[in-house]
Protein backbone atom coordinates (compact mmCIF):
# COMPACT_ATOMS: atom_id res chain seq x y z
CA UNK A 1 0.00 0.00 0.00
CA UNK A 2 2.78 2.40 0.93
CA UNK A 3 4.45 1.67 -2.38
CA UNK A 4 1.31 2.52 -4.31
CA UNK A 5 0.67 5.76 -2.42
CA UNK A 6 4.05 7.17 -3.37
CA UNK A 7 3.61 6.59 -7.10
CA UNK A 8 2.24 9.50 -9.17
CA UNK A 9 -1.13 7.76 -9.46
CA UNK A 10 -1.21 7.18 -5.72
CA UNK A 11 -0.44 10.85 -5.03
CA UNK A 12 -3.16 11.82 -7.47
CA UNK A 13 -5.61 9.51 -5.69
CA UNK A 14 -4.72 10.97 -2.29
CA UNK A 15 -5.14 14.52 -3.56
CA UNK A 16 -8.50 13.62 -5.10
CA UNK A 17 -9.66 12.09 -1.84
CA UNK A 18 -8.52 15.14 0.11
CA UNK A 19 -10.26 17.45 -2.33
CA UNK A 20 -13.51 15.51 -2.00
CA UNK A 21 -13.18 15.45 1.78
CA UNK A 22 -12.92 19.25 1.77
CA UNK A 23 -15.31 20.22 -1.03
CA UNK A 24 -18.23 17.99 -0.08
CA UNK A 25 -18.58 19.62 3.37
CA UNK A 26 -18.12 23.04 1.77
CA UNK A 27 -20.91 22.35 -0.73
CA UNK A 28 -23.21 21.05 2.00
CA UNK A 29 -22.31 24.18 3.95
CA UNK A 30 -23.24 26.31 0.94
CA UNK A 31 -26.59 24.53 0.61
CA UNK A 32 -27.40 25.02 4.27
CA UNK A 33 -26.13 28.58 4.31
CA UNK A 34 -28.91 29.49 1.90
CA UNK A 35 -31.38 27.98 4.35
CA UNK A 36 -29.68 29.55 7.35
CA UNK A 37 -29.81 32.96 5.73
CA UNK A 38 -33.54 32.70 5.12
CA UNK A 39 -34.14 31.40 8.64
CA UNK A 40 -32.03 34.09 10.31
CA UNK A 41 -33.51 36.86 8.19
CA UNK A 42 -36.97 35.56 9.01
CA UNK A 43 -36.21 35.53 12.73
CA UNK A 44 -34.89 39.08 12.54
CA UNK A 45 -38.05 40.20 10.73
CA UNK A 46 -40.35 38.23 13.08
CA UNK A 47 -41.35 35.69 10.44
CA UNK A 48 -41.07 31.91 10.34
CA UNK A 49 -38.98 31.39 7.22
CA UNK A 50 -39.05 28.14 5.23
CA UNK A 51 -40.61 25.44 7.44
CA UNK A 52 -42.64 23.25 5.11
CA UNK A 53 -40.15 21.02 3.26
CA UNK A 54 -38.86 18.47 5.76
CA UNK A 55 -38.57 18.99 9.53
CA UNK A 56 -37.86 22.70 10.28
CA UNK A 57 -37.53 23.18 6.53
CA UNK A 58 -34.26 21.25 6.52
CA UNK A 59 -34.87 19.80 3.07
CA UNK A 60 -35.54 23.21 1.53
CA UNK A 61 -32.06 23.51 -0.12
CA UNK A 62 -32.60 20.20 -1.93
CA UNK A 63 -36.07 21.23 -3.07
CA UNK A 64 -34.56 24.48 -4.41
CA UNK A 65 -31.79 22.60 -6.18
CA UNK A 66 -34.29 20.22 -7.76
CA UNK A 67 -36.43 23.13 -8.91
CA UNK A 68 -33.40 24.81 -10.51
CA UNK A 69 -32.43 21.60 -12.29
CA UNK A 70 -35.90 21.11 -13.75
CA UNK A 71 -36.07 24.59 -15.25
CA UNK A 72 -35.07 25.43 -18.78
CA UNK A 73 -31.72 27.05 -19.50
CA UNK A 74 -32.44 30.06 -21.67
CA UNK A 75 -29.67 31.67 -23.70
CA UNK A 76 -30.81 35.05 -25.05
CA UNK A 77 -30.62 35.27 -28.84
CA UNK A 78 -28.24 38.26 -28.80
CA UNK A 79 -25.93 36.71 -26.23
CA UNK A 80 -22.43 35.47 -26.77
CA UNK A 81 -23.28 31.82 -26.21
CA UNK A 82 -19.95 30.42 -25.02
CA UNK A 83 -19.01 33.25 -22.70
CA UNK A 84 -22.59 33.38 -21.42
CA UNK A 85 -22.36 29.79 -20.25
CA UNK A 86 -18.72 30.07 -19.21
CA UNK A 87 -19.26 32.97 -16.75
CA UNK A 88 -21.28 31.12 -14.08
CA UNK A 89 -18.92 28.15 -14.29
CA UNK A 90 -15.96 30.46 -13.77
CA UNK A 91 -17.58 32.10 -10.75
CA UNK A 92 -18.31 28.77 -9.15
CA UNK A 93 -14.94 27.27 -10.04
CA UNK A 94 -13.01 30.15 -8.52
CA UNK A 95 -15.05 29.93 -5.33
CA UNK A 96 -14.06 26.26 -5.03
CA UNK A 97 -10.47 26.68 -6.21
CA UNK A 98 -9.48 28.93 -3.33
CA UNK A 99 -10.21 26.22 -0.76
CA UNK A 100 -7.06 24.35 -1.83
CA UNK A 101 -4.88 26.36 0.54
CA UNK A 102 -7.23 26.88 3.52
CA UNK A 103 -5.79 25.14 6.60
CA UNK A 104 -8.66 23.65 8.60
CA UNK A 105 -6.31 22.39 11.29
CA UNK A 106 -2.57 22.23 11.74
CA UNK A 107 -1.33 20.44 8.61
CA UNK A 108 -4.87 19.95 7.27
CA UNK A 109 -4.50 21.88 4.04
CA UNK A 110 -4.53 20.28 0.60
CA UNK A 111 -1.65 22.53 -0.49
CA UNK A 112 0.25 24.24 2.32
CA UNK A 113 2.13 26.60 0.01
CA UNK A 114 4.53 29.37 0.98
CA UNK A 115 2.53 32.11 -0.69
CA UNK A 116 -0.87 30.92 0.53
CA UNK A 117 -2.27 34.35 1.35
CA UNK A 118 -1.20 35.72 -2.03
CA UNK A 119 -2.89 32.77 -3.72
CA UNK A 120 -6.13 33.55 -1.88
CA UNK A 121 -5.85 37.24 -2.74
CA UNK A 122 -5.21 36.36 -6.39
CA UNK A 123 -8.17 34.01 -6.61
CA UNK A 124 -10.51 36.44 -4.90
CA UNK A 125 -9.42 39.21 -7.27
CA UNK A 126 -10.37 36.97 -10.20
CA UNK A 127 -13.95 36.64 -8.98
CA UNK A 128 -14.86 39.85 -10.78
CA UNK A 129 -14.32 38.20 -14.17
CA UNK A 130 -17.30 35.90 -13.80
CA UNK A 131 -19.47 38.94 -13.22
CA UNK A 132 -18.01 41.12 -15.98
CA UNK A 133 -18.15 38.34 -18.54
CA UNK A 134 -21.73 37.52 -17.54
CA UNK A 135 -22.76 41.15 -17.86
CA UNK A 136 -21.14 41.60 -21.23
CA UNK A 137 -22.13 38.26 -22.73
CA UNK A 138 -25.80 38.72 -21.80
CA UNK A 139 -26.07 41.63 -24.25
CA UNK A 140 -28.52 43.39 -21.96
CA UNK A 141 -28.18 46.90 -20.58
CA UNK A 142 -29.15 46.01 -17.02
CA UNK A 143 -26.70 43.15 -16.90
CA UNK A 144 -23.99 45.34 -18.37
CA UNK A 145 -24.58 48.15 -15.88
CA UNK A 146 -24.42 45.63 -13.04
CA UNK A 147 -21.16 44.25 -14.39
CA UNK A 148 -19.60 47.70 -14.68
CA UNK A 149 -20.61 48.58 -11.15
CA UNK A 150 -19.22 45.35 -9.84
CA UNK A 151 -15.90 45.74 -11.64
CA UNK A 152 -15.32 49.20 -10.17
CA UNK A 153 -16.50 48.14 -6.73
CA UNK A 154 -14.41 45.00 -6.41
CA UNK A 155 -11.24 46.66 -7.70
CA UNK A 156 -11.71 49.55 -5.25
CA UNK A 157 -12.15 47.44 -2.16
CA UNK A 158 -9.32 45.11 -3.07
CA UNK A 159 -6.90 47.97 -2.52
CA UNK A 160 -7.76 48.45 1.13
CA UNK A 161 -8.01 44.69 1.62
CA UNK A 162 -4.46 44.44 0.33
CA UNK A 163 -3.24 46.93 2.93
CA UNK A 164 -5.03 45.07 5.73
CA UNK A 165 -3.39 41.83 4.63
CA UNK A 166 0.02 43.54 4.53
CA UNK A 167 -0.49 44.77 8.09
CA UNK A 168 -1.25 41.26 9.28
CA UNK A 169 1.70 39.88 7.35
CA UNK A 170 4.04 42.34 9.07
CA UNK A 171 2.98 40.93 12.42
CA UNK A 172 3.51 37.35 11.18
CA UNK A 173 6.60 37.52 9.00
CA UNK A 174 5.37 34.85 6.59
CA UNK A 175 2.94 34.46 3.70
CA UNK A 176 2.03 30.94 4.75
CA UNK A 177 -1.50 30.53 6.13
CA UNK A 178 -0.49 27.98 8.75
CA UNK A 179 2.22 30.35 9.99
CA UNK A 180 -0.35 33.16 10.16
CA UNK A 181 -2.58 31.10 12.44
CA UNK A 182 0.33 29.93 14.57
CA UNK A 183 1.48 33.52 15.09
CA UNK A 184 -1.82 34.13 16.91
CA UNK A 185 -1.18 31.63 19.69
CA UNK A 186 -0.56 34.43 22.20
CA UNK A 187 -3.26 36.83 21.04
CA UNK A 188 -5.68 36.75 18.12
CA UNK A 189 -4.96 39.56 15.72
CA UNK A 190 -8.42 41.12 15.94
CA UNK A 191 -7.48 42.55 19.36
CA UNK A 192 -4.29 44.49 18.51
CA UNK A 193 -5.45 45.22 14.94
CA UNK A 194 -9.11 45.88 15.69
CA UNK A 195 -9.63 48.78 13.22
CA UNK A 196 -8.09 46.68 10.46
CA UNK A 197 -10.39 43.82 11.38
CA UNK A 198 -13.42 46.09 10.92
CA UNK A 199 -12.10 47.42 7.59
CA UNK A 200 -11.38 43.90 6.41
CA UNK A 201 -14.81 42.65 7.32
CA UNK A 202 -16.56 45.53 5.54
CA UNK A 203 -14.31 45.04 2.51
CA UNK A 204 -15.24 41.36 2.36
CA UNK A 205 -18.89 42.44 2.26
CA UNK A 206 -18.08 44.61 -0.75
CA UNK A 207 -15.94 41.91 -2.31
CA UNK A 208 -18.70 39.31 -2.14
CA UNK A 209 -21.32 41.83 -3.36
CA UNK A 210 -23.38 41.38 -0.23
CA UNK A 211 -25.76 43.89 1.31
CA UNK A 212 -25.25 46.81 1.92
CA UNK A 213 -22.88 46.73 -1.06
CA UNK A 214 -25.02 44.62 -3.39
CA UNK A 215 -25.20 47.32 -6.05
CA UNK A 216 -24.16 45.00 -8.91
CA UNK A 217 -27.47 43.23 -8.48
CA UNK A 218 -29.46 46.14 -7.05
CA UNK A 219 -32.95 44.90 -7.84
CA UNK A 220 -34.64 48.25 -7.34
CA UNK A 221 -32.72 49.89 -10.15
CA UNK A 222 -31.11 47.09 -12.21
CA UNK A 223 -33.79 44.35 -11.94
CA UNK A 224 -31.21 41.79 -10.83
CA UNK A 225 -28.00 43.24 -12.19
CA UNK A 226 -25.47 41.04 -13.89
CA UNK A 227 -27.54 37.84 -13.77
CA UNK A 228 -30.85 39.17 -15.14
CA UNK A 229 -30.67 36.93 -18.16
CA UNK A 230 -29.68 33.76 -16.34
CA UNK A 231 -32.03 30.94 -15.49
CA UNK A 232 -31.93 27.37 -14.26
CA UNK A 233 -28.54 25.85 -13.45
CA UNK A 234 -26.52 28.76 -14.79
CA UNK A 235 -28.33 31.00 -12.30
CA UNK A 236 -27.87 28.41 -9.58
CA UNK A 237 -24.11 28.41 -10.16
CA UNK A 238 -23.97 32.18 -9.63
CA UNK A 239 -26.10 31.81 -6.54
CA UNK A 240 -23.97 29.01 -5.10
CA UNK A 241 -20.80 30.85 -6.07
CA UNK A 242 -21.87 33.88 -4.07
CA UNK A 243 -22.54 31.78 -0.97
CA UNK A 244 -19.33 29.77 -1.41
CA UNK A 245 -17.47 33.08 -1.61
CA UNK A 246 -19.13 34.20 1.61
CA UNK A 247 -17.90 31.07 3.36
CA UNK A 248 -14.46 31.53 1.84
CA UNK A 249 -14.20 35.14 2.98
CA UNK A 250 -15.36 34.12 6.45
CA UNK A 251 -12.64 31.48 6.49
CA UNK A 252 -10.11 34.10 5.43
CA UNK A 253 -11.27 36.47 8.18
CA UNK A 254 -11.00 33.60 10.64
CA UNK A 255 -7.46 32.78 9.56
CA UNK A 256 -6.24 36.37 9.51
CA UNK A 257 -7.91 37.74 12.63
CA UNK A 258 -9.75 35.12 14.67
CA UNK A 259 -6.96 32.62 15.20
CA UNK A 260 -7.99 29.90 12.72
CA UNK A 261 -8.36 26.55 14.48
CA UNK A 262 -6.95 27.80 17.82
CA UNK A 263 -9.24 27.66 20.87
CA UNK A 264 -9.98 30.99 22.62
CA UNK A 265 -7.83 29.94 25.57
CA UNK A 266 -5.45 27.04 25.82
CA UNK A 267 -7.05 25.64 29.00
CA UNK A 268 -9.07 22.57 29.87
CA UNK A 269 -12.61 22.84 28.51
CA UNK A 270 -11.57 24.77 25.42
CA UNK A 271 -8.68 22.67 24.18
CA UNK A 272 -10.69 19.45 24.40
CA UNK A 273 -12.64 20.63 21.38
CA UNK A 274 -10.75 19.70 18.20
CA UNK A 275 -9.38 22.48 15.99
CA UNK A 276 -11.64 22.02 12.96
CA UNK A 277 -14.70 22.51 15.18
CA UNK A 278 -13.34 25.85 16.37
CA UNK A 279 -12.60 26.76 12.78
CA UNK A 280 -16.16 25.98 11.69
CA UNK A 281 -17.65 27.80 14.70
CA UNK A 282 -15.69 30.94 13.88
CA UNK A 283 -16.75 30.75 10.23
CA UNK A 284 -20.37 30.43 11.38
CA UNK A 285 -19.96 33.52 13.55
CA UNK A 286 -18.68 35.51 10.58
CA UNK A 287 -21.48 34.20 8.36
CA UNK A 288 -24.08 35.14 10.94
CA UNK A 289 -22.66 38.67 10.93
CA UNK A 290 -22.91 38.73 7.12
CA UNK A 291 -26.62 37.93 7.37
CA UNK A 292 -27.14 40.26 10.32
CA UNK A 293 -25.66 43.13 8.31
CA UNK A 294 -27.98 42.31 5.42
CA UNK A 295 -31.01 42.47 7.71
CA UNK A 296 -29.88 45.75 9.26
CA UNK A 297 -28.47 48.15 6.69
CA UNK A 298 -30.04 49.67 3.58
CA UNK A 299 -28.11 49.61 0.33
CA UNK A 300 -25.39 52.22 -0.20
CA UNK A 301 -25.66 54.79 -2.95
CA UNK A 302 -22.97 54.28 -5.56
CA UNK A 303 -21.02 57.49 -4.88
CA UNK A 304 -21.11 56.78 -1.15
CA UNK A 305 -19.71 53.33 -1.80
CA UNK A 306 -16.82 54.75 -3.78
CA UNK A 307 -16.23 57.46 -1.18
CA UNK A 308 -16.05 54.87 1.58
CA UNK A 309 -13.59 52.73 -0.34
CA UNK A 310 -11.23 55.38 -1.65
CA UNK A 311 -11.53 58.31 0.76
CA UNK A 312 -12.04 56.52 4.07
CA UNK A 313 -10.70 52.98 3.98
CA UNK A 314 -7.68 53.54 1.78
CA UNK A 315 -6.09 56.44 3.74
CA UNK A 316 -7.02 54.89 7.06
CA UNK A 317 -5.57 51.46 6.28
CA UNK A 318 -2.45 53.10 4.88
CA UNK A 319 -2.07 55.16 8.06
CA UNK A 320 -2.62 52.12 10.27
CA UNK A 321 -0.08 50.19 8.22
CA UNK A 322 2.54 52.85 8.92
CA UNK A 323 1.61 53.00 12.62
CA UNK A 324 1.81 49.22 12.95
CA UNK A 325 5.18 49.15 11.23
CA UNK A 326 6.50 51.91 13.52
CA UNK A 327 5.23 50.21 16.68
CA UNK A 328 6.65 46.83 15.66
CA UNK A 329 10.01 48.41 14.89
CA UNK A 330 10.25 50.62 17.98
CA UNK A 331 9.08 47.95 20.40
CA UNK A 332 11.33 45.35 18.81
CA UNK A 333 8.41 42.97 18.10
CA UNK A 334 9.30 42.41 14.45
CA UNK A 335 9.17 38.71 13.65
CA UNK A 336 12.52 37.24 12.69
Amino acid at each position, binding site marked *: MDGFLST*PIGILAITLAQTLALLVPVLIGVAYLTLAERKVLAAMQMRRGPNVVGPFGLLQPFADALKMLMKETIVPSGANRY*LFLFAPMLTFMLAMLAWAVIPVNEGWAIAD*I*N*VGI*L*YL*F*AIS*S*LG*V*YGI*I*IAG*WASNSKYA*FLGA*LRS*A*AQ*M*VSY*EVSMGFVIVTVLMCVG*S*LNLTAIVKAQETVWFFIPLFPMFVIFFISTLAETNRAPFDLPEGESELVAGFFVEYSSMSFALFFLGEYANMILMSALTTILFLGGWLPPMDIAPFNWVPGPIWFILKICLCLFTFIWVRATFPRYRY*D*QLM*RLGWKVFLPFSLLWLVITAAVLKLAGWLPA
Partner: protein
Amino acid sequence: MIAALAFYLFAAILIASAVMVVTARNPVHSVLFLILAFFNAAALFLIAGAEFLAMILVIVYVGAVAVLFLFVVMMLDIDFAQLREGFQRYAPFGAVIGGILFLELAFVLGSWSFADSADDLRLSPNPGAGVTNAEALGRILYTDYVYLFQAAGMVLLVAMIGAIVLTHRDRPGTRRQSIADQVARANSISLEKVPVGAGVKELGIRRPPEPAAEPPRVTHDAGHGGHH
Protein backbone atom coordinates in the same frame (compact mmCIF):
# COMPACT_ATOMS: atom_id res chain seq x y z
CA MET B 1 9.40 14.47 -16.85
CA ILE B 2 6.02 15.75 -15.57
CA ALA B 3 7.54 19.22 -15.09
CA ALA B 4 8.81 19.19 -18.68
CA LEU B 5 5.41 18.09 -19.99
CA ALA B 6 3.72 20.81 -17.97
CA PHE B 7 6.19 23.36 -19.28
CA TYR B 8 5.50 22.50 -22.91
CA LEU B 9 1.77 22.44 -22.29
CA PHE B 10 1.71 25.88 -20.65
CA ALA B 11 4.18 27.34 -23.16
CA ALA B 12 2.09 26.06 -26.07
CA ILE B 13 -1.11 27.52 -24.63
CA LEU B 14 0.74 30.77 -23.91
CA ILE B 15 1.89 31.17 -27.48
CA ALA B 16 -1.44 30.08 -28.92
CA SER B 17 -3.34 32.56 -26.78
CA ALA B 18 -0.84 35.31 -27.61
CA VAL B 19 -1.52 34.66 -31.29
CA MET B 20 -5.24 34.77 -30.60
CA VAL B 21 -4.87 38.15 -28.89
CA VAL B 22 -3.72 39.59 -32.19
CA THR B 23 -5.99 37.66 -34.53
CA ALA B 24 -9.28 37.49 -32.61
CA ARG B 25 -12.05 39.36 -34.40
CA ASN B 26 -13.71 40.67 -31.28
CA PRO B 27 -11.57 42.97 -29.06
CA VAL B 28 -13.22 41.60 -25.92
CA HIS B 29 -12.12 38.12 -26.94
CA SER B 30 -8.63 39.53 -27.46
CA VAL B 31 -8.52 40.78 -23.87
CA LEU B 32 -9.79 37.45 -22.58
CA PHE B 33 -7.06 35.64 -24.50
CA LEU B 34 -4.56 38.12 -23.06
CA ILE B 35 -5.74 37.07 -19.59
CA LEU B 36 -5.26 33.42 -20.54
CA ALA B 37 -1.74 34.30 -21.67
CA PHE B 38 -1.03 35.97 -18.30
CA PHE B 39 -2.23 32.85 -16.53
CA ASN B 40 0.06 30.59 -18.48
CA ALA B 41 2.98 32.93 -17.89
CA ALA B 42 2.22 32.68 -14.16
CA ALA B 43 2.22 28.90 -14.48
CA LEU B 44 5.64 29.05 -16.17
CA PHE B 45 6.91 31.17 -13.26
CA LEU B 46 5.60 28.51 -10.88
CA ILE B 47 7.44 25.77 -12.74
CA ALA B 48 10.62 27.85 -12.52
CA GLY B 49 10.12 28.05 -8.74
CA ALA B 50 9.27 31.75 -8.69
CA GLU B 51 6.02 31.39 -6.76
CA PHE B 52 5.98 34.96 -5.48
CA LEU B 53 6.32 36.43 -8.97
CA ALA B 54 3.64 34.08 -10.26
CA MET B 55 1.13 35.24 -7.65
CA ILE B 56 2.02 38.91 -8.12
CA LEU B 57 1.56 38.50 -11.88
CA VAL B 58 -1.93 37.13 -11.33
CA ILE B 59 -2.86 39.73 -8.69
CA VAL B 60 -1.54 42.79 -10.50
CA TYR B 61 -2.01 41.99 -14.17
CA VAL B 62 -5.00 39.69 -14.16
CA GLY B 63 -6.74 40.96 -11.04
CA ALA B 64 -6.35 44.70 -11.59
CA VAL B 65 -4.87 45.82 -14.91
CA ALA B 66 -6.75 43.43 -17.16
CA VAL B 67 -10.03 44.12 -15.33
CA LEU B 68 -9.75 47.83 -16.11
CA PHE B 69 -8.64 47.00 -19.63
CA LEU B 70 -11.64 44.75 -20.18
CA PHE B 71 -13.81 47.44 -18.64
CA VAL B 72 -12.64 50.01 -21.19
CA VAL B 73 -12.69 47.68 -24.20
CA MET B 74 -16.25 46.57 -23.45
CA MET B 75 -17.44 50.16 -23.42
CA LEU B 76 -15.67 51.19 -26.61
CA ASP B 77 -17.79 51.22 -29.71
CA ILE B 78 -15.37 49.76 -32.22
CA ASP B 79 -16.10 49.62 -35.91
CA PHE B 80 -14.56 46.34 -37.01
CA ALA B 81 -14.79 47.07 -40.72
CA GLN B 82 -12.88 50.32 -40.33
CA LEU B 83 -10.31 48.60 -38.14
CA ARG B 84 -9.52 46.03 -40.81
CA GLU B 85 -9.58 48.45 -43.70
CA GLY B 86 -5.86 48.90 -44.29
CA PHE B 87 -4.84 45.34 -43.45
CA GLN B 88 -3.83 44.36 -47.01
CA ARG B 89 -1.85 47.55 -47.45
CA TYR B 90 0.06 47.43 -44.16
CA ALA B 91 0.62 43.67 -43.90
CA PRO B 92 3.92 43.63 -45.88
CA PHE B 93 5.43 46.44 -43.77
CA GLY B 94 4.40 44.68 -40.59
CA ALA B 95 5.84 41.41 -41.80
CA VAL B 96 9.16 43.03 -42.69
CA ILE B 97 9.49 44.81 -39.34
CA GLY B 98 8.52 41.65 -37.48
CA GLY B 99 11.03 39.63 -39.47
CA ILE B 100 13.85 42.06 -38.72
CA LEU B 101 13.06 42.05 -35.00
CA PHE B 102 12.96 38.27 -34.99
CA LEU B 103 16.32 38.03 -36.77
CA GLU B 104 17.90 40.50 -34.33
CA LEU B 105 16.64 38.50 -31.37
CA ALA B 106 17.91 35.29 -32.95
CA PHE B 107 21.38 36.83 -33.50
CA VAL B 108 21.60 38.08 -29.92
CA LEU B 109 20.46 34.80 -28.39
CA GLY B 110 22.57 32.70 -30.78
CA SER B 111 25.83 34.45 -29.90
CA TRP B 112 25.16 34.68 -26.16
CA SER B 113 27.15 32.56 -23.73
CA PHE B 114 27.73 32.96 -20.02
CA ALA B 115 31.23 34.01 -18.89
CA ASP B 116 32.94 31.42 -16.71
CA SER B 117 33.05 33.76 -13.74
CA ALA B 118 29.46 35.00 -14.18
CA ASP B 119 28.29 33.34 -10.98
CA ASP B 120 30.87 35.18 -8.86
CA LEU B 121 30.27 38.53 -10.54
CA ARG B 122 26.62 38.69 -9.54
CA LEU B 123 25.77 41.51 -7.15
CA SER B 124 23.29 39.43 -5.18
CA PRO B 125 24.16 35.75 -4.97
CA ASN B 126 21.50 33.07 -4.78
CA PRO B 127 20.12 32.64 -1.27
CA GLY B 128 20.24 29.20 0.27
CA ALA B 129 17.59 26.57 -0.19
CA GLY B 130 15.68 27.41 3.00
CA VAL B 131 14.87 30.98 1.98
CA THR B 132 11.46 31.62 0.45
CA ASN B 133 10.94 33.70 -2.69
CA ALA B 134 9.39 36.64 -0.89
CA GLU B 135 12.20 36.77 1.66
CA ALA B 136 14.92 36.55 -0.98
CA LEU B 137 13.36 39.37 -2.97
CA GLY B 138 12.90 41.49 0.15
CA ARG B 139 16.50 41.06 1.17
CA ILE B 140 17.69 42.55 -2.10
CA LEU B 141 14.94 45.05 -2.78
CA TYR B 142 14.97 46.71 0.63
CA THR B 143 18.73 46.75 1.15
CA ASP B 144 20.91 47.13 -1.94
CA TYR B 145 18.24 48.62 -4.18
CA VAL B 146 16.14 50.54 -1.68
CA TYR B 147 16.70 53.94 -3.35
CA LEU B 148 15.89 52.60 -6.80
CA PHE B 149 12.85 50.91 -5.35
CA GLN B 150 11.66 54.15 -3.76
CA ALA B 151 12.39 56.06 -6.96
CA ALA B 152 10.27 53.61 -8.94
CA GLY B 153 7.47 54.22 -6.46
CA MET B 154 7.83 57.98 -6.89
CA VAL B 155 7.65 57.63 -10.68
CA LEU B 156 4.39 55.71 -10.36
CA LEU B 157 3.00 58.26 -7.91
CA VAL B 158 3.84 61.15 -10.22
CA ALA B 159 2.27 59.30 -13.14
CA MET B 160 -0.89 58.73 -11.11
CA ILE B 161 -1.16 62.34 -9.98
CA GLY B 162 -0.47 63.48 -13.54
CA ALA B 163 -3.30 61.32 -14.89
CA ILE B 164 -5.69 62.70 -12.30
CA VAL B 165 -4.68 66.31 -12.95
CA LEU B 166 -5.02 65.89 -16.71
CA THR B 167 -8.45 64.29 -16.62
CA HIS B 168 -9.98 66.13 -13.70
CA ARG B 169 -12.60 68.67 -14.68
CA ASP B 170 -13.84 70.99 -11.98
CA ARG B 171 -17.54 71.25 -12.69
CA PRO B 172 -18.98 74.38 -11.10
CA GLY B 173 -22.40 74.18 -9.56
CA THR B 174 -22.36 70.55 -8.43
CA ARG B 175 -23.88 69.99 -5.02
CA ARG B 176 -21.87 67.62 -2.93
CA GLN B 177 -22.94 65.57 0.02
CA SER B 178 -21.25 66.63 3.23
CA ILE B 179 -21.40 63.55 5.40
CA ALA B 180 -19.72 65.26 8.35
CA ASP B 181 -22.46 67.92 8.43
CA GLN B 182 -25.17 65.31 8.21
CA VAL B 183 -23.75 63.26 11.02
CA ALA B 184 -23.19 66.31 13.21
CA ARG B 185 -26.79 67.51 12.83
CA ALA B 186 -28.66 66.98 16.09
CA ASN B 187 -32.24 65.75 16.59
CA SER B 188 -32.67 64.72 12.98
CA ILE B 189 -33.59 61.15 13.80
CA SER B 190 -34.72 59.39 16.93
CA LEU B 191 -35.54 55.84 17.94
CA GLU B 192 -38.51 55.13 20.17
CA LYS B 193 -39.37 51.86 21.80
CA VAL B 194 -43.05 51.04 21.47
CA PRO B 195 -45.02 48.13 22.92
CA VAL B 196 -46.02 45.47 20.41
CA GLY B 197 -49.62 45.65 19.21
CA ALA B 198 -50.34 49.24 20.17
CA GLY B 199 -51.53 51.61 17.48
CA VAL B 200 -50.54 55.13 16.64
CA LYS B 201 -53.57 56.58 18.45
CA GLU B 202 -53.07 54.76 21.75
CA LEU B 203 -49.44 55.78 21.92
CA GLY B 204 -50.01 59.36 20.89
CA ILE B 205 -46.99 59.14 18.63
CA ARG B 206 -46.17 62.48 17.19
CA ARG B 207 -46.95 62.93 13.57
CA PRO B 208 -44.38 64.80 11.51
CA PRO B 209 -44.87 68.50 12.28
CA GLU B 210 -47.02 70.45 9.86
CA PRO B 211 -44.91 72.23 7.29
CA ALA B 212 -44.40 75.89 8.10
CA ALA B 213 -46.62 78.33 6.24
CA GLU B 214 -43.75 79.50 4.11
CA PRO B 215 -40.91 77.00 3.59
CA PRO B 216 -37.47 78.50 4.18
CA ARG B 217 -36.04 79.62 0.91
CA VAL B 218 -33.04 77.74 -0.37
CA THR B 219 -30.50 80.05 -1.90
CA HIS B 220 -28.17 78.51 -4.40
CA ASP B 221 -25.75 81.33 -4.87
CA ALA B 222 -24.40 81.45 -1.32
CA GLY B 223 -21.76 78.76 -1.48
CA HIS B 224 -20.40 79.13 -4.97
CA GLY B 225 -18.84 82.51 -5.09
CA GLY B 226 -22.07 84.40 -5.69
CA HIS B 227 -21.44 85.94 -9.10
CA HIS B 228 -21.82 84.15 -12.40
